[in-house]
């Protein structure tokens, strides 16, 4: 079947449906159109990051359900696009949601490249945009704008506090290892800044070509350097393999391993005991003594019959932030200024603890030091209280 065929048939169906609907309920139809809030979700629903996209969506829907299905007195209509974690398609996908579907708010995405692709479109159209997951510093740095918010955290935020922790433990010389691409380098830079400020020294920076996962030569190199500790950043399957190789090479237990949160997030089941004792800094943990977190976890398990993770928490907060904006203007989303102001000043009661927006629209939040015990990232201490991203280059 050709593209043309399909279009014609669909167009015909749509047309006849509209005529039928219009003939039956002319006024009701028009009113329903204007009264629903149009929420565009542009997230990965297939591929490596699919779990994260689904998690954000579920978290968002949980918060909506808790608000009785309505924000500012208006029901919500979803427009969903699978971004496939493909930065190349990002501007086109974002345009579809903004131009064709005329969404009141755009939510996306996970892959930093995709979010960077959305950024240009969102800055030009002025559509309200919330980034639920992407870590790239520049999104709330040089690319910041009044209509752009992030509910997760920057790479810098998850790495900077780690330096002080290491110095307090007496680890004065460390080796840093990561993938040689933008996010890896951002993680290294964030850690380096905090660590050197605390008086530590990175004696060697090791890089693995992205997305390779052959770590053996570099682990041998680490063994020959004998640093006080190793700091690493990998994510997903790469992190799982790194932790297993670290254990298999005999380094585990001899040279302590640290990292920023994604090193031990979402993979604990896959790595078995290889992750035990690894410590990371991250704005969320699995056993926080926070009332809201306990309620959130219970509600999530009840609604979706599975355990929540960081992505669901971020989706939940994204909805909370949006609700704060819409409620403040009583559903009148045309009042963009009013919404932005309300979102800027909102105190979000999040499962990770209460947070609010920085000037650059990135959460000012506590960063926890966590340790892997069993299948959980257990909180050890608060590594940094109310930490704000420096938002270098943000002029808005």
């Amino acid at each position, binding site marked *: 079947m050709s593209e043309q065929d399909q279009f014609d048939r669909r167009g015909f169906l749509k047309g006849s449906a509209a005529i039928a609907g219009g003939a039956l309920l002319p006024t009701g139809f028009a009113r329903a159109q204007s009264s629903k809030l149009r929420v565009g979700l542009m997230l990965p629903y*297939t*591929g*490596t990051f*699919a*779990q994260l996209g689904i998690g954000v969506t579920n978290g968002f829907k949980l918060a909506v359900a808790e608000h009785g299905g309505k924000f500012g007195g208006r029901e919500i209509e979803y427009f969903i696009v699978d971004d496939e974690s493909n930065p190349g398609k990002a501007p086109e996908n974002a345009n579809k949601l903004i131009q064709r579907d005329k969404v009141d708010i755009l939510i996306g995405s996970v892959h930093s490249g995709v979010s960077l692709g959305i950024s240009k479109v969102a800055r030009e159209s002025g559509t309200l945009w919330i980034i639920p997951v992407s870590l790239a510093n520049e999104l709330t740095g040089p690319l910041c704008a009044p209509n752009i918010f992030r509910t997760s955290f920057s790479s810098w935020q998850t790495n900077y506090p780690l330096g002080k922790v290491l110095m307090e433990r007496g680890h004065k010389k460390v080796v840093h290892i990561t993938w*040689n691409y933008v996010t890896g380098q951002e993680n290294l830079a964030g850690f380096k800044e905090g660590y050197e400020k605390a008086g530590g020294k990175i004696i060697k*920076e*090791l*890089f*693995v*070509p*992205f*997305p*390779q*996962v*052959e770590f*053996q*030569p*570099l*682990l*041998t*190199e680490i*063994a*020959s350097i*004998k640093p006080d500790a190793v700091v690493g950043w990998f994510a*997903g*399957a790469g992190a*799982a*393999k790194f932790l*297993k*190789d670290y254990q*298999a*090479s*005999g*380094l585990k237990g*001899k*040279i302590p391993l640290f990292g920023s949160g994604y090193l031990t997030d*979402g*993979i604990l*089941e*896959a*790595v*078995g005991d290889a992750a035990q004792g690894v410590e990371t800094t991250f704005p969320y943990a699995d056993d926080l003594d926070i009332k809201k977190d306990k309620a959130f976890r219970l509600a999530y398990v009840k609604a979706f019959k599975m355990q929540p993770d960081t992505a669901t928490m971020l989706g939940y907060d994204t909805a909370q932030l949006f609700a704060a904006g819409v409620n403040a203007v009583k559903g009148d989303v045309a009042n963009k200024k009013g919404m932005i102001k309300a979102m800027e000043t909102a105190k979000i009661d999040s499962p990770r603890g209460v947070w609010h927006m920085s000037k650059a629209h990135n959460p000012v939040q506590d960063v926890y030091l966590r340790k892997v015990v069993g299948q959980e990232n257990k909180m050890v201490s608060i590594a940094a209280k109310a930490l704000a991203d420096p938002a270098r280059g943000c002029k808005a």
Partner: protein
Amino acid sequence: MNFSFFLIQLLNGMQYGLLLFLVASGLTLVFGIMGIINLAHGSFYMVGAYLAWWLAGMTGSLTAAILLGIPLTVILGMSLEWLLMRRLYGRDHLYQVLLTYGLILVLEETRSILWGDDVYGLKVPDMLNQSIALTENLSYPVYRLFISGVCLLLAAGLYVLIKHTRLGMMIRAGASNREMAQSLGINIKLVYTLVFALGVALAAFAGMINAPVSSVYPSMGNPVLIICFVIVVIGGIGSVKGAMAASILIGMADTFGQVLVPEVSGMIVYLLMAGLLVWRPEGLFSRI
């Protein structure tokens, strides 16, 4: 880097190279003998890894999973050849690229439907789950050495199969002249089906045996595919001997590149390929 660490890095390079050979050998067979550019080779590697994880979960043993998984992948390979590949032998390479690229998408999606998009870990069999201490703080996992041993055995097996058996003779005959071999009474269609199934099984077997080390995750075959093409091109298309030499060479280049010149380690293997191709455009060894 002192001498003992230099030796360990040599071992690392050798071990990585042998693993690459295991995946690349199937690709070079299919490419060299059948003339098929099989982009889905990496996906078969992924299928193998997921099969190992799935079957090991059901049977409780990796050995059993591999023994069950190999016939399954042979059947998969034979049916794919019979249903799809067979139609493309006479055609341009572009059709093969399109078909096998389509296969990547189909296999990925099937994997997603059957097994989901999670990362899974697989335990190393207890018997092999040990390490040998090399220095005061470094030890070498026995399972990695075991993989190397299996790769060497398999390489020897392939060599004997192609050079010293009747089937190997038919394969070589078919590779050099399909029509002539056919008119001499060789059932060339069957030979091709077998070779393709062997290629699929080799890739899947590499995925299975490597699953405990690499973990099992979506699109894990893609990076493998790229490096395998590099090996096949350097080694000489269709040459198993060449694939072996090129694998070890790439393993060493990658290992020492990462340690000695970390800034450009991502490019080293490609620079090596470019250099070698200038020197020997047909690869290190040409043809079987």
